[in-house]
């Protein structure tokens, strides 16, 4: 079969990683996918010193790539809500499949994007949007498809977890570790999204939708950051036999679905309480399978690329399948999404 042509929008950390993995593992990937995958074009404003793009054509105009008739799959790796949304919708309109790592875009605009994708019969895949390289989206969407999911809980922001780990292991203050995280590139110059839990809430929203079969409702997620935590808090937790983690929790109850991100004490002997540094982990509890745990790198050039390329391979395999019979975007048949409400935080049940 002829190779499939893909276009990469964005040559930053993830874009560069995606190109490198596709190139380095081309043979392995072709053995799995059944055909070759070729990067026909890249849209980027700058070059990436960690990525040698060789003779691949590069344009500064993402829309030139999105309108390129040769390209079957558009890989959106520029991030943000505005241009990314426009380019994704245009790609869909042009009948192209989309692979993205953009959790903010999916959490906030996913319902609209999936509706358009359904109309056009194209796939929109977003494994890399949640927990980097860990294939948690696929695990819940397909691996656990037989279950009624009861709850899931995740350490899904590496920046916050790095800070909390340093606070506990070295007794340092929050502000002090944050400065170091920024210097190491683990936190943005504006770290608000990370330390206030917004990034985690984006990801949790997506996980909850595919776990419970509800529309994406990011605006209803409760977020509480880690900025108020002190060494005293960390020490008291330790004294009581707990560790403090920034946890995203989604739980199904009769009254509704809890969707909350906040600092949480977890018993020190739980595996997830021992996930440290920038690593991520998600626990998912299903009625048939019980508790499962997914652990790995939540970010980084090649871990995230691993998830992006896996999605590309999935799309390649599905290219010749009937659009009516593919895996639905939010794991559940779109016309069968539930209207079980998201509970406001005051109605949630918690210990503290």
């Amino acid at each position: 079969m002829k190779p499939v042509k893909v276009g990469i929008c964005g040559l930053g950390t993830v874009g560069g990683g995606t190109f490198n993995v596709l190139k380095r593992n081309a043979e392995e990937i072709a053995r799995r996918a059944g055909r070759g995958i070729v990067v026909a074009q890249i849209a980027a404003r700058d070059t990436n010193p960690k990525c040698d793009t060789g003779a691949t054509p590069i344009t500064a105009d993402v829309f030139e790539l999105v309108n390129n008739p040769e390209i079957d799959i558009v890989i959106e790796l520029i991030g943000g809500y505005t241009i990314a949304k426009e380019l994704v919708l245009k790609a869909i309109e042009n009948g192209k499949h989309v692979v993205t790592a953009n959790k903010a875009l999916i959490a906030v605009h996913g319902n609209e994007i999936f509706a358009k994708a359904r109309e056009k019969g194209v796939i929109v895949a977003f494994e890399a949007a949640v927990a980097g390289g860990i294939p948690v989206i696929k695990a819940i969407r397909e691996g656990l498809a037989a279950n009624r999911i009861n709850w899931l809980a995740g350490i899904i922001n590496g920046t916050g977890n790095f800070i909390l780990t340093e606070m506990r292991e070295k007794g340092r203050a929050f502000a002090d570790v944050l400065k170091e995280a920024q210097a190491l590139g683990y936190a943005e110059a504006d770290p608000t999204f990370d330390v206030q839990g917004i990034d985690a809430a984006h990801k949790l929203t997506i996980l909850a939708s595919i776990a419970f079969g509800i529309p994406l409702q990011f605006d209803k997620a409760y977020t509480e950051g880690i900025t108020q935590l002190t060494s005293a808090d960390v020490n008291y937790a330790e004294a009581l036999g707990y560790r403090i983690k920034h946890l995203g929790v989604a739980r199904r109850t009769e009254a509704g679905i809890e969707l909350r991100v906040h600092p949480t004490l977890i018993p020190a002997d739980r595996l997830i309480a021992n996930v440290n540094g920038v690593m991520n982990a998600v626990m998912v509890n299903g009625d048939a399978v019980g508790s499962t745990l997914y652990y790995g790198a939540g970010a980084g050039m090649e871990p995230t690329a691993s998830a992006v390329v896996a999605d590309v391979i999935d799309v390649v395999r599905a290219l010749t399948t009937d659009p009516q019979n593919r895996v639905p975007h939010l794991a559940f048949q779109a016309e069968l999404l539930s209207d079980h409400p998201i509970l406001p935080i005051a109605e949630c049940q918690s210990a503290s």
Partner: protein
Amino acid sequence: MLAKGATILSERGSNIESILQKVAEEQDGLVPMILLSHRVREQSMNGAIAALEGLEGVAGKVVRIRVEQLN
């Protein structure tokens, strides 16, 4: 103080799982008190926290951090 704290929580449907009182960390006549509660509707806990803060023997705000057993 411990007894008052326990009463306030149980009036709102929660029970205390454990208590730590750090007498060794006394400062200006105050000792930190740490309460671990059982699972309860957050609305009720909010009321309990407000009541605790209003107690005469209590200085400062209550720091509330949620607990999940994940079992």
